[in-house]
């Protein structure tokens, strides 16, 4: 048996629905149709009345989820694309994220964002929005890079008492496969050592973990051992694991698929610079997408985001310093 990242997301939702009567799913085309990416395939049939098609009203979708959560439900919201969460942005950051702090009443909603670039998708179906949501207090932001994490973190997202932004990468949906679903998992908030190495640390998350792993393979054949830290969740961000890795390697390259101003790479690098300055044998480095919208054409798209190639170049440069 083999299971994809996308199937893992479906299975996690099926299990959450089966085990917890408080769970329901709400989003555009998630019902009988099974969702734009089929992440809710057959769930409406298996759980009648609990997987609900929404109008094209992201603000009201999130708003209703908040109200349901106040009443003790645990809604899972699917945005059709991460990019379309902007009309729901206000309810997410100003309502869901502030509710617990203001009232001590938890707001357990999970918002699934099909994220990240795929070739030919263009500026409005490719965005990585984790930075925006991580900036606001009151939200947890998960960025699973593996089939196992897609499954176990989504279950944990639903179980947590806080609003969770669940960034699932569209490029991994069907390409990434595992043998089976995990039976146990690293808890949310802990990063994962995706590959041990002693010469430098690459910190990555979501799809970029796989680009980084390819680089590690490549550099290994040249005798360089790259350690890869998969952040898993970017808020909370597991600074300890990052720091421990940098303590071993002395060199840090942080890679993100989002835009260069601010974001995960800025946060990771500045934490290490502030709190682990003495661990660094060389200046830390960042690699991000370019500072333009995500281009439509595959030629441009491939050059816009970091890839194994550009990561390898950055890694080699860092090793030379």
């Amino acid at each position, binding site marked *: 048996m083999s299971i994809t990242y996308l199937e893992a997301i479906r299975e996690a939702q099926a299990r959450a629905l089966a085990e917890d009567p408080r769970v329901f799913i709400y989003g555009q085309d998630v019902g009988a149709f099974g969702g734009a990416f089929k992440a809710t395939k057959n769930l409406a049939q298996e759980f009648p009345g609990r997987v609900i098609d929404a109008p094209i009203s992201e603000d009201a979708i999130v708003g209703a989820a908040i109200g349901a959560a106040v009443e003790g*439900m645990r809604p899972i919201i699917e945005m059709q694309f991460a990019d379309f969460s902007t009309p729901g942005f206000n309810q997410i950051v100003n309502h869901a994220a502030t509710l617990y702090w203001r009232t001590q009443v938890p707001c357990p909603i999970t918002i699934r964002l099909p994220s990240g670039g795929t070739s030919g998708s263009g500026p409005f179906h490719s965005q990585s929005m984790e930075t925006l949501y991580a900036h606001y207090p009151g939200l947890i932001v998960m960025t699973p890079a593996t089939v196992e994490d897609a499954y176990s973190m989504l279950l944990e997202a639903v179980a947590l008492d806080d609003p969770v932004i669940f960034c699932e990468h569209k490029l991994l949906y069907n390409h990434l496969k595992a043998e089976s679903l995990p039976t146990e998992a690293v808890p949310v908030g802990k990063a994962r050592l995706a590959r041990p190495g002693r010469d430098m640390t690459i910190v990555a998350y979501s799809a970029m973990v796989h680009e980084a792993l390819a680089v590690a393979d490549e550099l290994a054949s040249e005798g360089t051992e790259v350690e890869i830290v998969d952040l898993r969740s970017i808020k909370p961000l597991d600074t300890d694991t990052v720091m421990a890795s940098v303590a071993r390697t002395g060199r840090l390259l942080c890679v993100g698929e989002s835009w260069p101003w601010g974001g995960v790479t800025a946060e990771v690098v500045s934490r290490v610079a502030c709190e682990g300055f003495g661990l660094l044998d060389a200046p830390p480095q960042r690699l991000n997408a370019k500072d333009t919208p995500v281009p439509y054409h595959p030629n441009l798209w491939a050059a816009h985001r970091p890839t194994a190639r550009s990561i390898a170049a950055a890694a080699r440069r860092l090793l030379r310093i």
Partner: protein
Amino acid sequence: MLLARTLDEKFASLYRAGKIHGGVFLGRGQEALSVAVGLNLRKGDVFAPLIRDQAGRLAFGETLLDAARTYLGSALGPMRGRDGNVHRGRPREGYLPMISHLGAMIAVVNGTLLARRFKGVLRTVGATCIGEGATSTGSFHEAINQAAVEKLPLVLVIANNQYAYSTPSSRQFACTSLADRASGYGVDAHSVDGTELAACLSVLAEAVERAREGHGPQMVVARLLRLCGHGEHDDASYVDPRLKASPLGRDCLKVAEQNLLSRQWADAVTIEGWRCEAVHKVEEAVATALREPTPDPYKENWCALASKHLVETHPEV
């Protein structure tokens, strides 16, 4: 509504005395409408009031102390000084605390009603109030349409008080009456003169009843005039004097009192007694809140997550 007016006036005078941090927003002229909403709801219903709903809040069961504590920043209030003035509620009791972004509460009420449907809780309704200005928000539209599609027992009360801050309704919408919007959503509409308590009570009773009986969302549109500034910092000098002189400009409280007197349901002495009682209660609540501790930043846990183990710690300075 007398109690609400008295409380509002107390807040206004505390504001003038510099005793209140931030803004003060009154419901002056809107008490009849607001109280009619609160009175028609029952325990178990949901209520999401807005800035001019002191009367509805009290009628729904808010205590004077909750209101005073929030306005005065007592650490013992429901918002513990984290949020203030009209941004207060007790979600566990079906009393939702507004966020400032206009239109945002409607969909949240929808969500509570959806949850009840899931849980099989029947015959509860959710009511929320909004000004005519906020009908221009996308949130308003998405939420009322959502309620209509789900046929939720939502009562959406629109107080057309002629102004949104300084902006007259003519710059806000171009339809004859906002009630004309209802058919475009497939929901019921009710119009009412918001200066007449009796009319408000009966129209709200009907709207709430219809929602409870399963007839889907009910839109209530009230005509009235805001008899105060947008907030107490605002002298409202832009309000058209013709509106003030028109029937819309009548004070619903005075109208109600006149009614009581003319129908001989109460005499002047009784009413004066009620007023004294209201003042007394309000003074008591305010005095209590004023004596109470204000929030202590050193005791504050600065923690926005319910999952305490996932809170990030930042290097202390």
